[in-house]
C-alpha cells in the first residue's frame, strides 16, 4: 500500500469515504490486489504469536480471578494490531508501548518466564516487583518500560526517533496507544513535534472502540481519529486492525517512509476490545453483549488462521499441537514464578539513583532492620 504525503485533504487517502484499508475478509480470503504476499513462514510466526498471546491472556485472567496474580491487562481481539505491527518493524526499532502490547515484546523474543515473573512481581522480575503486573520492561527487545499515565510514551517515541535521526541511525520508533490517548496533552505535543521536525516515528493508534467505559463518540468530534493527522501535517491512514496482513502492509509502508526521511505517519488501527479494559473492569455495565458478539465475528486470530489454512500452511493438528505446547510452557513458567520469593526489602531502595545517596542508605537500613524485616531476610 502507498501512503500519500501531499495536500490538499482531498488528495489524502482517508478523505471522502474514509476507507479502512483491509486485505482479509472474515473468512480469511485475501483481496488479490491488496495482498502483500508475505512469506508464509512470516505469517505463521505472526499467527503463532497472536495465538500464544490469546492463550496467555485467557490463563492470566483466570489466575487473577483465583487471586494468584493481582491484575492483568488483556489484549483479546487486538492481537493483529499488536503483533503484525511489531513484525513490520525492524529489530533495531524502538517500541514505546501503552500497556496492552506485551505480545509485541514476545514476538521479539522476550522470554515468557521474564513476563510471568513480572506478573508475579517476584525476585526474578526485571523491575523487582516495583510495578504492577503487565508493566513490563524489555531492553533487549527495545521495548520501553510500560507506564500507566496515558499518552506519555507518545512524546517519548518522538524523542527516541529524534535521537536516531541525530545519530544518523536506521532506527524508527513506534508509539502504541489507544483511542483515549488521542485526548491527552502528549498526543497533541507529540504529533505537533513530529510534524515540525519530521522525526522517523510511527503513531500506532489502536482504536478499540472504548477507553475503559467511554466510547469513541465521547472521545472526539472528529470524523475519524485519522483525521487528527491533518491538523499536524502528519499523513494518516486507517487500517483494519483485525487484519494482520493489512496491519503489516500499512506499518511496513509507514516504516519505509520514516526510514527514507519522509517523517511520521499516524495509523489508525480499527479494532475492538473484546475483553474488559483490565481485570478490574466490568464492561457489562456500559456496553451490550450483542455489540461484543458482532465484533467477535471479525476475530483477528480466526481470520488469519483461515488464511493460513487456505494456503495449506496450517491444520487443525498444528493448532492443537501449538496450543498444547504453549499451555505447557506457560504452566512451567507460572509454577516457577509462584515458587520464586519476593524481592528483598533492601531492593526497594535501589535504582532510585545510579548511586544510592546517604538518605536512602539510612532509610534502607531503618527498613531492613525494622519490625517486619525478620521473615524476609
Amino acid at each position, binding site marked *: 500500500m502507498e501512503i500519500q504525503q501531499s495536500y490538499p485533504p482531498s488528495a489524502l487517502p482517508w478523505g471522502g469515504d474514509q476507507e479502512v484499508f483491509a486485505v482479509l475478509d472474515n473468512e480469511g480470503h485475501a483481496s488479490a490486489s491488496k495482498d502483500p504476499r508475505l512469506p508464509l513462514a512470516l505469517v505463521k510466526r505472526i499467527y503463532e504469536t497472536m495465538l500464544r498471546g490469546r492463550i496467555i491472556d485467557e490463563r492470566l485472567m483466570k489466575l487473577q480471578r483465583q487471586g494468584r496474580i493481582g491484575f492483568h491487562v488483556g489484549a483479546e481481539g487486538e492481537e493483529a494490531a499488536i503483533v503484525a505491527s511489531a513484525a513490520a518493524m525492524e529489530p533495531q526499532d*524502538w517500541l*514505546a508501548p501503552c500497556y496492552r502490547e506485551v505480545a509485541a515484546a514476545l514476538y521479539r523474543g522476550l522470554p515468557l518466564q521474564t513476563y510471568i515473573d513480572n506478573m508475579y512481581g517476584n525476585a526474578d*522480575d*526485571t*523491575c*523487582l516487583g*516495583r*510495578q504492577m503486573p503487565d*508493566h513490563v*520492561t*524489555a*531492553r533487549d527487545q527495545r521495548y*520501553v*518500560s510500560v*507506564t500507566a*499515565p496515558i499518552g*506519555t510514551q*507518545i*512524546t*517519548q*517515541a*518522538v*524523542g*527516541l*526517533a*529524534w*535521537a*536516531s535521526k*541525530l*545519530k544518523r541511525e536506521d*532506527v524508527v*520508533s513506534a508509539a502504541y496507544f489507544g483511542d483515549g490517548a488521542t485526548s491527552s*496533552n*502528549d498526543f*497533541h*505535543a*507529540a504529533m*505537533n*513535534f513530529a510534524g*515540525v*521536525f519530521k522525526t522517523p516515528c510511527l503513531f500506532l493508534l489502536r482504536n478499540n472502540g472504548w477507553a475503559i467505559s467511554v466510547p469513541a463518540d465521547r472521545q472526539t468530534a472528529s470524523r475519524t481519529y485519522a483525521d487528527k493527522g491533518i491538523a499536524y501535517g502528519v499523513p494518516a491512514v486507517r487500517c483494519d486492525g483485525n487484519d494482520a496482513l493489512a496491519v503489516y502492509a500499512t506499518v511496513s509502508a509507514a516504516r519505509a517512509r520514516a526510514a527514507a526521511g519522509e517523517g511520521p505517519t499516524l495509523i489508525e488501527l480499527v479494532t475492538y476490545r473484546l475483553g474488559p479494559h483490565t481485570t478490574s473492569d466490568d464492561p457489562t455495565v456500559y456496553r451490550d453483549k450483542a455489540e461484543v458478539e458482532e465484533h467477535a465475528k471479525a476475530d483477528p486470530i480466526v481470520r488469519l488462521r483461515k488464511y493460513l489454512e487456505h494456503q495449506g500452511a496450517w491444520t487443525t493438528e498444528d493448532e492443537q499441537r501449538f496450543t498444547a505446547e504453549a499451555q505447557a510452557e506457560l504452566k512451567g513458567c507460572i509454577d516457577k514464578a509462584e515458587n520464586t520469593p519476593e524481592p528483598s526489602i533492601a531492593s526497594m531502595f535501589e*535504582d*532510585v*539513583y*545510579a548511586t544510592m*545517596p*546517604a*538518605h*536512602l542508605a539510612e532509610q534502607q537500613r531503618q527498613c531492613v532492620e525494622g519490625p517486619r524485616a525478620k521473615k524476609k531476610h
Partner: protein
Amino acid sequence: MTQMTMVTAINDALRSEMRADERVVLLGEDVGKEGGVFRVTAGLQQEFGEDRVVDTPLSETGIMGAAVGMALGGLRPVPEIQFADFIYPALDQLVNEASKYRYRSGGEYTCPMTVRVPVGGGIRGGHYHSQSPESMFIHTAGLKVVCPSNPYDAKGLLLSSIRDPDPVLFFEPKRVYRALKMDVPEEDYTVDLSSAKVVREGEHVTCVAYGAMLFEAVAAAEEVKQQGIDVEVIDLRTLWPLDADTVVESVKKTGRLCVVHEAARACGLGGEMVAEVCEKAFLHLEAPPRRITGWDTPFPYTLENEYLPLAHRITPALLETARY
C-alpha cells in the same frame, strides 16, 4: 580566569560540554536563534547548528517528553523551561517518567538529562515569572535538584549535572544572572553534586541558604557581626540529595539554625532541614530553629520585596536566635 556573570558561565559550560560530547543537545522555546529569553544559550545555535540547539514549538509537555525520549535513545538532552512558573505542563514527564525510568525498569532504562530552569523572584516578574517550586521536585523520588548561587558554582555544577547518570533539575536564580561577575576558569572543572559549602565561618548561628537568597544571608550575617554575632553561612548548592552532614555538623558547633529560602514555607526545604537537624542534633540545640522564607501566599508583583526573605527579615531572625 575570566570575569563572568552567571549567564556567561552557564553559556560557557554548555559550549564546552557540547564541544566535548556530541550527545549533548539543547532544546526549548527561543533557545536557538534568539539564544533564550535570558540569552543564556546565545551563540550556541550558530556554533552547533539547528539539530543540536533546537527551537521547539511552545509546549513544555512536548519539550520534556521529547527530552525523555532523547535520553532513552542515548543522547544527553538539556531542555530549557523558559521560567519555572511554566514547568507544570511538564510535570507528568518529570514526576512519572524521567525520575522513574531507572527504578521502574530495574535499571534497564535511564534518563540522564539536565533540565535548566530560571527560577525565583526579584525581577519584577509577578506570579508567573517569579516562582520557586523546588520543593515539589525534592519530593519527587529520582530527581536531583541543583541551585547555584554564583557563576563559578553554576559552571561547575552544570557540568556535573550534564555528566550525571540521573535526571537533574538545574534551577538558575535569575536575580543573580547578571548581578555579579567573578573569576571563572575557562577550562573544564566540576563542582560535586550534593556538596554544600560553608561560605562564611562563624560560631554563634548556622544560616543555610541557596540561590539568590545566599547573598541576603551573607548581608544579614555581616550586619549582625557588628553586634558581635558570628554567623556560619552555608550555601547548599545542591538541594537534593541533601548534604545534611555539613548542616548538622555546623549546628552541632553553633547550636542554632536559621534556614532561608524564597519558596513558600509550608512543606518547604527549610522544614525538612529543621526536621533533619532536630533528629540528628537535638541535644545540641540552644534555640528553636527558624525558617525565614517566602510567605504562603502567591508571589506578588508590587510587594515582592516584602514577600522575599531579604536581609531585613533575616537580620532580626539571626539576632533573636542568637540571643534566645
